[in-house]
């Protein structure tokens, strides 16, 4: 059974058809790319899957559970984490606190535990702290634990966001244009980190990305959308030479 199963997902905003009849199966330990020109509906797919929008029609099953109508934090608790196209970190909390907060859904203590500093509180905080520091070390961010994200360079902010998503212990990681705004050195780092996460945690990754270098070197399958419609599916090599895709990106005149 696939980890994520999307069938006939359709989203209309008023008269605009943002997404039409979108279907995909993502298996466990799979690395899938979603590409398409600007405004094609890629981020809409992620917003639907993570629970921010309710689709007009269609169904989503994640890890065997239908997630339609679930609030985003519930979807996260099921094991799905995501990053954003524009970085959304908590800029006035330290990097360590950013990572710590990712453990919120598996916190396991209540308000009274926090106020009375019970043993349950201390154990939970200790384990969250240890795990967060571990993740920071693994993502080569250890030295920035006490920094504020707003003071970090853009590439590192992206990496902190990736680390934060990873700290929720996801089964599926959604990356929305992880390479946007990065220079070529940062992009190489990013590819290395994503590959490492993929191999080390054996999770599934689904990413939206424009930079062909990232997509071609990481993804096993690609899916292309344009104007809300799925226009091609296949391996990166197949997609690269698919005339429909070239058409969508470059226009009619090229062929």
């Amino acid at each position: 059974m696939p980890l994520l199963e999307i069938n006939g997902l359709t989203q209309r905003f008023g008269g605009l058809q943002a997404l039409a009849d979108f279907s995909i199966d993502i298996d466990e330990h799979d690395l899938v790319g979603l590409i398409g020109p600007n405004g094609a509906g890629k981020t809409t797919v992620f917003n639907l899957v993570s629970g921010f929008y309710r689709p007009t029609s269609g169904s989503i099953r994640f890890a065997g559970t239908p997630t339609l109508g679930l609030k985003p934090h519930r979807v996260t608790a099921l094991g799905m984490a995501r990053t954003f196209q524009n970085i959304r970190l908590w800029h006035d909390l330290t990097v360590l606190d950013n990572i710590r907060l990712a453990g919120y859904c598996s916190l396991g203590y209540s308000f009274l535990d926090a106020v009375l500093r019970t043993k349950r509180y201390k154990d939970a905080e200790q384990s969250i702290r240890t795990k967060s520091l571990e993740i920071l070390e693994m993502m080569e961010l250890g030295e920035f634990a006490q920094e504020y994200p707003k003071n970090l360079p853009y590439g590192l902010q992206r990496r902190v966001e990736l680390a934060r998503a990873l700290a929720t212990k996801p089964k599926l990681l959604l990356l929305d244009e992880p390479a946007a705004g990065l220079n070529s050195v940062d992009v190489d780092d990013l590819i290395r980190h994503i590959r490492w996460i993929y191999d080390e945690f054996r999770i599934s990754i689904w990413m939206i990305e424009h930079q062909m270098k990232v997509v071609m070197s990481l993804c096993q399958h690609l899916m292309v959308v344009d104007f809300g419609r799925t226009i091609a599916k296949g391996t990166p090599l197949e997609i690269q030479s698919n005339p429909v895709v070239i058409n969508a990106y470059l226009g009619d005149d090229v062929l």
Partner: protein
Amino acid sequence: MQPRTSDFTSSLSSIAQSAQRRTLNFVFLLAALALILAVHYDFLDDYIMTILMLMGINIIFAASLNLVNGYMGEFSCGHAGFMCVGAYVGSIVSLGFFTGRFFGASFFPPEFAPFLFPVVLLAATLVSAVFGLIVALPSFHTRDDYLAIITIAANFIIISIVVNIDAIGGSRGLQGMKRTMNAMRQVLDIPWMLVWVVICTVLCITVLYRLMTSTYGKGISAVCQNEVAAEIMGVNTNRVKTMAFMVSSGLAGLAGALYAHVYGYINATNFDILKSTEGLVMVYLGGMGSLSGVILAAIGFTLLVEMLRFILPAMNDFLHAFSLLPADYSLNQVWKWVIIPLILILLMQFRPEGFLGNKELTHVFPRLKRWIYFK
């Protein structure tokens, strides 16, 4: 990468730190004891004592408002409404327990007063916390200006309801809470009210400090700084908001119950929009999202308001001496409400983030970290 040896030194320094913090707690305890003894042996007169108690109440009031307006970044303008609820609930329970009012005969003999007063405070806190839901529920869908309007409305609604219930005094107000105080003094002659205010203030600060240093409480900051990210990282934003509003209004209710028993008389109009504004002034003076800043601001604000009682007449005499004022006009205490908003305007002009911003005292004076630790 840090060298291994630093583990050892850091653990050493953390032991030293906890020892110093323990001495600090001990110092606080001694200070509190000294204060109570000083009052008991008449080193402090009633006036100074009242100001100290007012300071404590203001600290609770402002620090609880800071949870919503500072840490969570919402704009609640009706905080005094919850103080009103707390004041009335506390008074009703207190009067019901120890006088014949409300329940026919008094429930308990006066000797029980010192032991049952915490029940009075707890009842006020819990009922006010429930009233906090009034604001928490609309906050799921609204933010900023709209929520501010809703909170002002809540403030007015609460006051109007109280004024229109004749059984609790209506517009005449409610009195008789001093009797509870006197009952406590019969058991043991110490300044009970000061003791309760000190205990509650320390309790309130501890609760807020522990909440905001826990991952659970940091969810509040997460909601403030990026609600979308909070939701996607597994923070149940609606529950966090409910929790923050309930803790905040519950503590405001505690401040209200203390206020009622310090003065022995309450009137719904004591808790109108002006009182809410005082809370806002204290929060913005100290710095939004700074616990130490708000405590300092509450102390400073209380002192300032009291000093104006003397400064205004003195200024009146001074200005008249030089004929700078018309002879038939005198500066009265109403000018307090010119000066306090003026402070707010100047603050917004020159230091909009407040004295400490969202930093704690330990960030501004790092050497304090040996004694207190905030974040």
